[in-house]
């Protein structure tokens, strides 16, 4: 392995981490407000599909971006409706919406493109070049500043730590949680758009590949702090980049089976979540209904 491969790996890492970082920022916002957004995976899936479909149809990636954010938020609004208003269990509802996304996306795909798998390939001139990288830096900084410096951030933290105290002060934790869900969903959709329009040239079946859950794992490891979480996301993104490079490489004369390499990122998440977390510093009112 020479220096070029190393550099190539790091460049790759910065790209593959983008969806993880954006999604993780989304989950941080929701969980800080006290609500669990397990549907981030489905929001990513739907965002990837909507983003690719609209980008292809209107030959404009920015319209695709809008579509992805809106569809992610729409899904999150369902989650908010059922878990905040309907008081259903947030984890179960989130997971259920993921299943629903798995059903809706192929059917829409067949309806619009006659293909329940992939969307048609987006020509290179309709894709984006630098915007996702810019977002990768911008969004974590914005989220960090949001929580550190703004009133909104403070109220959100309160909604997650002490919702009763917040309502005693005259604010509505319920409204904050709705907002948090919508923003979180929008970011999830945005992460999906990056997947299908930037990192790829279209949507393919099951594209999110567990990344939403990996983002949640990164958030837990990053102790719900934006900047630490970014580092963890880079770590996971690196494993995905390595996995791409490693395919075909030999170890001691034997070709490593491709399946072993493919499971590396998931194995890594398992080991880190299982090995390095002892007790959690989650927001106190996380997952509770108000």
């Amino acid at each position, binding site marked *: 392995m020479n220096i070029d491969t190393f550099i190539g790996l790091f460049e790759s890492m910065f790209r593959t981490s983008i969806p993880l970082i954006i999604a993780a920022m989304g989950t941080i916002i929701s969980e800080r407000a006290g609500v669990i957004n*397990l549907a981030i995976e489905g929001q990513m899936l739907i965002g990837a599909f909507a983003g690719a479909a609209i980008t292809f149809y209107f030959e404009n990636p920015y319209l695709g971006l809008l579509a992805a954010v809106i569809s992610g938020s729409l899904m999150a609004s369902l989650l908010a409706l*059922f878990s905040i*208003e*309907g*008081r*259903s*269990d947030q*984890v*179960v*509802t989130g*997971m*259920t*919406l993921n*299943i*629903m996304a*798995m*059903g*809706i*996306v*192929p*059917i829409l795909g*067949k*309806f619009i493109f006659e293909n*329940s798998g992939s969307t048609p390939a987006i020509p290179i001139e309709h894709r984006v070049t630098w915007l996702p990288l810019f977002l990768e830096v911008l969004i974590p900084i914005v989220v960090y500043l949001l929580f550190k410096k703004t009133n909104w951030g403070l109220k959100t933290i309160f909604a997650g730590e002490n919702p009763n105290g917040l*309502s005693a002060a005259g604010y509505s934790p319920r409204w904050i949680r709705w907002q948090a869900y919508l923003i979180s969903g929008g970011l999830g959709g945005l992460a999906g758009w990056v997947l299908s329009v930037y990192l790829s040239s279209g949507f393919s079946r099951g594209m999110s590949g*567990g990344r939403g*859950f990996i983002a*949640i*794992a990164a958030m*837990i490891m990053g102790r719900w702090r934006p900047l630490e979480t970014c580092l963890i996301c880079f770590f996971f993104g690196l494993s995905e980049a390595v996995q791409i490079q490693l395919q075909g490489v030999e170890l001691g004369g034997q070709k490593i*089976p491709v*399946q*072993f390499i*493919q*499971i590396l990122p*998931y*194995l890594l*998440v*398992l080991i880190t*979540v*299982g*090995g390095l*977390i*002892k*007790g*959690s510093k989650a927001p106190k009112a996380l997952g509770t209904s*108000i």
Partner: protein
Amino acid sequence: MSKLNHNPLVIKFLWPISILIFTSAFLFLLNENPFNVAKIIWQSATSSRFDLGMTLFYSTHFILTGLAVSLCFKVGLFNVGAEGQLTFGTAVGTAASLLSARLGYFTSILIGTLMGIVAGGFWAFIPAYLKIKRGAHEVITTIMMNFIAAGLASYLIIIHFSNPDSQRPESAVVPAFDWLRSHDLLAQSFEGSPVSFVFILAVFLCLAADFILMKTPLGYLIRATGAGFDAAEVGQIPVRKIQLSVFTIAGAIAGLTVLTEVIGGVGQYKLGFSADYGFTAIAVALIAGNRPYLIILSGLLFGVLHKGASGLDFESDVLTKDFSYILQSLLILFIIVRGRVKNEH
């Protein structure tokens, strides 16, 4: 909205009805008549012997995995890993059965099944252990285990046990398969479909689980573990030990899929055989609610929906069998809404 939500009648009826209305609207938008959809689903699931056999076959899968998920809910854990547990169990069980083929039909069936159970249990043990010892959230760990299992199963079957007679991604045929099928009453009654005696076994397991859970002291302890009693009472219950044991057993039950699918059903491990049985299991468990014996009915319901949805794929221009995911999630949403209680703000 909040005033409406305080009325229990509203909660029970308005939410499900709203869901039904939205689904129908969605279907109308796609130029599909909801009643026609329902008819297609029912006919596809029940019209012929073969259809019924397939429905029962799918139901067997759903009952087993549904039981696996449901047991974990009982001890307060969310088992999203039934998919990985059934995959890993089936792959290892298939391999074991193929390896022990020379020991005779009955023995190879036994060994394959046992190894499937052990492997499934092992696959559940890992995330359960990480949860109780390290506080690792079981939703994340089990989902990762699902992905890892898929990779390992693919490796095991394709690289080491693949079918010498075909190019498809499948294992060799288990030698005891034909012998087992010829002695299987259910298999003979529904000729052509992979349903087997395992359906009866699955039903029996549910009834047994129901009995143990409801009528024995052990069952009481298990239910108490998940019920969230206060600290004083919890002190008497070995919560973590029970959680670990139940979670592992759940994985073992999922591993029984090797018998349903391979040894007694299709005869070989075909990569990707599972139509997300492990995820549907979540719906099965939630719909069944509190009593394990209801998993039998819930599993049958989803068997009908699943077989029926494949008919949709055939008959409808727009809907595919993925529609069953939408149906599942709607069914779950129907029942998980609790609404607001009068005294809360």
